[in-house]
């Protein structure tokens, strides 16, 4: 059987200043090549959990395994070379005077040799579409560009797993799509992608697995189609399914939604549903 690349075992976490546990009994397995979105209200524990994956936080109880190896005792800097972490606000991690230096910082610390650093800098800037800005100061870039720069800086360390906390906050639709397309491309090249997001439309369009968290626990875990087609359970934790799935749930409750990703897919399904030659009672319509 395939081994998970990341696994938690009965993970509990409590911030030192708090009484309550921020994470409780988390058992999750993530496999190589997955594209996973963690969703849930602010304070549900998504970011806290993801920070355990590269050692930014350590469990109060329980274990985290990376490639089958217990991460306790492995320093964060070692983990960071396998598991890259992009913060929600790119400005919290950008600090260098030029785009080139920003990118080179991580690889330099990992001891990559100079010629490798130079070639990888070019490669990652190309991947995020920022080649022409190589000598610009990072803060002269737009917000969407800075987000992509932050992703590039982490990519330059050649991690297998890429964690991006809220990749599209504060970006318009066009910029959001650009970033998500970049992540899809990296995923197809073999990177495991883990994101958090409040944008259910983007999640349903790009992620292939959705983990819904609530009150420090995993509430649901499955394909977007499965998670989003249970509106009652979503409502309990104040998540609104994308319109598509709300419509699908109402008009085609028994249909196979595995191929419904875009509004056009749903329209096709609805069309078949409405014009299928079956009595209304079987049709599942209102």
């Amino acid at each position, binding site marked *: 059987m395939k081994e998970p690349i990341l696994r938690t075992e009965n993970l509990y976490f409590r911030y030192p200043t708090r009484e309550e546990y921020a994470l409780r009994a988390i058992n999750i397995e993530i496999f190589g090549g997955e594209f996973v979105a963690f969703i849930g209200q602010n304070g549900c524990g998504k970011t806290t959990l993801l920070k355990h994956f590269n050692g930014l936080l350590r469990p109060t109880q329980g274990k985290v395994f990376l490639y089958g190896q217990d991460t306790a005792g492995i320093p964060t800097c070692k983990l960071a070379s396998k598991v890259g972490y992009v913060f929600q606000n790119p400005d919290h991690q950008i600090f260098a005077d030029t785009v080139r230096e920003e990118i080179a910082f991580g690889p330099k610390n990992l001891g990559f040799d100079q010629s490798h650093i130079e070639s990888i800098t070019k490669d990652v800037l190309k991947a995020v579409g920022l080649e022409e800005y190589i000598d610009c100061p990072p803060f002269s870039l737009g917000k969407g560009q800075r987000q992509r720069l932050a992703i590039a800086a982490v990519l330059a360390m050649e991690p297998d797993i890429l964690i991006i906390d809220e990749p599209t906050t504060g970006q318009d*639709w066009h910029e959001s799509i650009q970033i998500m397309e970049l992540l899809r491309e990296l995923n197809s090249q073999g990177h495991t992608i883990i994101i958090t997001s409040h944008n259910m439309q983007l999640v349903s369009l790009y992620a292939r697995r959705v983990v819904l968290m609530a009150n420090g626990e995993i509430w649901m875990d499955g394909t977007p189609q499965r998670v989003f087609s249970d509106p009652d359970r979503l409502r309990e934790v104040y998540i609104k399914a994308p*319109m598509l799935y709300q419509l699908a749930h109402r008009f085609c409750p028994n249909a196979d939604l595995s191929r419904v990703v875009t509004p056009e897919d749903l329209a096709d399904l609805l069309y078949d549903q409405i014009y299928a030659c079956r009595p209304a009672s079987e049709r599942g*319509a209102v």
Partner: protein
Amino acid sequence: MPLIEVKDLTFTYRGASQPALKGVSFTIEAGEFVGLIGPTGAGKTTLCMALAGIIPFTVLGKMGGRVWIAGMNTIEHEVAELAQVIGLVLQDAQAQLLMTDVEKEIVFPLENLALPREEIARRLEAALDLVHLKEMRRLHPFYLSGGQRQRVALASILAMEPQILVLDEATSELDPVGVEEVLSVVSELKAKGKTIILVEHNMEELVRFADRVIVLRAGRIVADGPARQILTNISLLQDIGVYPPQITLVGQRLRELGLDLPELPLTLDEGITMLEQLVKAHANLSGEERVVK
């Protein structure tokens, strides 16, 4: 006389090679709820700042054309004076908050206006009431959630009792609960007849409130009309990089498949009504007709 009149407005930031606004003209009547949309860099924030008089006085550059707010030419009046007529709420509430508790944050601008004590107290209560933050009045903004902080920023603007409220992506950094908190306040303000300009990326939110939508691209107005007309114009939206409501796309596709839809739906409720009618209309056909279909 319209409440807002903008005529041939151009603005070039100091040091920029291209103007951010290139000859923008429109008027807004009292009580209108206007959505302002367009891609990043279209000039939406520049326009908001020009309406509030921050441009050209605080943010420097070269301005051409004129802006009148309630009859005041913005280049002949102080920002502080304009602020009593037009309030601007920005994307990043934290950047706007500077005091150590919610109450102080709200009364600070009122004290600067040297209003009488009783008047300040009255406005404070009214503002806290409008944003539903009465219980949190003594808290440091640090202890508030994003949605609550944005409501404090909104309250401090509302306490100035402006006739016009401009919200520049005021919800784009909030989680869904925070978005709902802020938008429900906005919807109450609309019901009270405030003139509101809302810059918003999410068309599914905008469609709930806006009567009219202005579309900016590359510093120019490319469309201005009733919200329904603009937001069902899918090719226009896609052209400017804005994602139409999903339900509108569903409707569009059903039309392409040959269904006769007189109007594209914009909200989930409209979509449900439309589909229910389609299902019903089909169920009424005889078996034979169905097979033909």
